[in-house]
């Protein structure tokens, strides 16, 4: 009896995992499939009788009247994702370096502040930051959407954690060779922290790409609207009755981030293997 179970155990595990995997990927699959269906078949048929590109044509055309520029909104999304990502990595690194490796006066105090910043709910800042953006004339432009995300305490925190592990002797050697502090960061710290940086990039980009509430509040200009907001307005307001078009939009919103994730997957798994994932 027990013997029999042992023999069945591995196939059973794989079966459960595959079912789970199916459930976790199925909504994506259905989304992509539906985006190629004619509207009438989305609810009624699983396998479409014919495939159509009309949903994509519809959103690329931008709806029925106004130039509602989906291509433009993808570019907007890229702008408000890429700039913070670069900035978060850059400032995360130099701040962490100055706190942990140079140990400026009061660095412990700042490190505590960073942890508090990570803990504070964003809801507390929604209204005052909105007012700040208003007073600075940053409503309806990119800086309003970007500014508050240029520095991320979380990124500083994990760089601090990582920099702790780099032996000081390495840095001292570089300093004796005449390397400036900035050079140490770019030539030694950056290559060493490849995995950390990859994960900072992936997660920052992901969060900014999918960001919804903040750009919804600070931008009402269609020309600068990121895809997530444009799609939400599109779906909730004008095109409630066009499920195929909605799914085409959702596919457009999901695709880049999935691709990015697949590209960075290596680092993710590397990070996990560090923790000793062994069979």
């Amino acid at each position, binding site marked *: 009896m027990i013997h029999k179970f042992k023999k069945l155990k591995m196939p059973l595990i794989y079966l*459960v995992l595959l079912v*789970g995997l199916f459930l*976790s*990927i199925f*909504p*994506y699959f259905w*989304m992509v499939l539906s985006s190629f269906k004619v509207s009438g078949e989305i*609810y009624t048929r699983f396998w479409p009788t014919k495939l159509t590109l009309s949903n994509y044509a519809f959103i690329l055309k931008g709806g029925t009247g106004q130039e509602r520029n989906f291509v433009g909104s993808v570019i907007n999304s890229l702008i408000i994702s890429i700039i913070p990502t670069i900035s978060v990595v850059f*400032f995360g690194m130099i*701040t962490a*370096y*100055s*706190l942990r490796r*140079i*140990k*400026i*006066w009061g660095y*412990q105090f700042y490190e*505590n502040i960073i*942890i508090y*910043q990570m803990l*504070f*709910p*964003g*809801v*507390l800042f*929604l*209204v*005052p930051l909105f*007012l700040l953006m208003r007073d600075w004339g940053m409503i309806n432009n990119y800086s309003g959407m970007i500014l508050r*995300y240029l520095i991320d305490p*979380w990124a*500083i925190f*994990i760089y*601090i*954690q*990582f920099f702790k*592990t780099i*032996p000081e002797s390495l840095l*001292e050697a570089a300093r004796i060779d005449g390397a400036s502090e900035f050079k140490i960061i770019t030539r030694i710290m950056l290559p060493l922290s490849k995995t950390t940086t990859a994960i900072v990039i992936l997660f920052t980009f992901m*969060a900014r790409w*999918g960001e*919804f509430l903040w750009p919804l509040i600070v931008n009402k200009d269609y020309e600068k609207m990121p895809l*997530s907001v444009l799609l939400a307005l599109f779906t909730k307001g004008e095109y409630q009755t066009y*499920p195929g078009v*909605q799914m085409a939009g*959702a596919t457009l*919103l*999901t695709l880049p*981030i999935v691709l990015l*994730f697949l590209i960075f*997957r290596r680092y*993710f*798994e590397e990070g*996990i293997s*560090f*923790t*000793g*994932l062994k*069979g």
Partner: protein
Amino acid sequence: MVSGGASLPLFPKNRVSNLWTIWFDNDIRFICCVERGFLGGSQMRKNLIERKPFKQKKLIGYLFSSPFITFTLVMWIYPFLWGIVISFKKWNLISPRQTWVWFENYIGVLKDPLLWLMVRNSIYFMVVFITLTTITSLVLALLIKQIPKKYAGFFITGFLLSYVASGVAYSMVFNLLFAGDGLVNNLLKIIGVKVGWFTDPKIAMASIAMIVCWKFTGYYGLFFLAGLNNINPTLYEAAVIDGANAWQRFTKITVPLLNATFVMIIVFATITSFNLFTEPYMITNGGPMNATRTMMLEIYHRVFALLQAGYGSALAIVSAIITFAFVWTFRKLIEKDDIYDT
């Protein structure tokens, strides 16, 4: 070690440095912790003994950290204080007239039965979400631990795919999948069941918890996997020798040693519950019967639809306090002393 960690009220105290914490201020907040091992504990201790730095280096250090300090002052401390000030005022964002009403907004918030309904909604969400998601992600981690590494990577990637979906997109997909005549109900019709997933006030919040669980299972599974990998295998061997069966090994070794992971996940799930916005905004708009109204939705509605900035700010502060209270209570209840060191 982050110095002064002991003074932090909400964060697992000894573990701050052991956790890889990834935090976003997004609609759903998430944290990734890959515990221990990653950072190499022994190395860390060695680094505590360091040489005294010299002056010029310090100067550059100030230069490097000044953007962060400026940012903290301008985008963090200043708005935080301003938020508190606004909560004591009555102001419609438009007129130059701002009147001090002191605690009137707070009294209004606390007297509104909607507040308690929203707290109840969040608790409901929390219970369903935490139960579902800890079970699914723990099972996932336990299963992946059993299989060879070369396949593990494939499954991890596959399960994490749901995690990268953006709130707007997957809300749209699930809204259609779970519609009255959507795919799920059409399948259930075969066995003669019909569920108003997002329209029955009793289960609407549970449905949302379910789709959020869909998003987080792979991700939290990763936490558990990291936790499992940190358990010394000799413990299990010793237990087998002592005659413990699989269930005993699970409850006596695995679960207690995963305590830190449980704490992290429950803390983050709690914060997620109280900050829910995109999913109810996209799918239910707070209905039916306010069953999916969350504090974020209400703050948004108060401030941006009714222009009640003061009331909205007061509600934001109350909601933060409630969140903290829950986080604190959970930690009191489930967090054990650091078992690793014993």
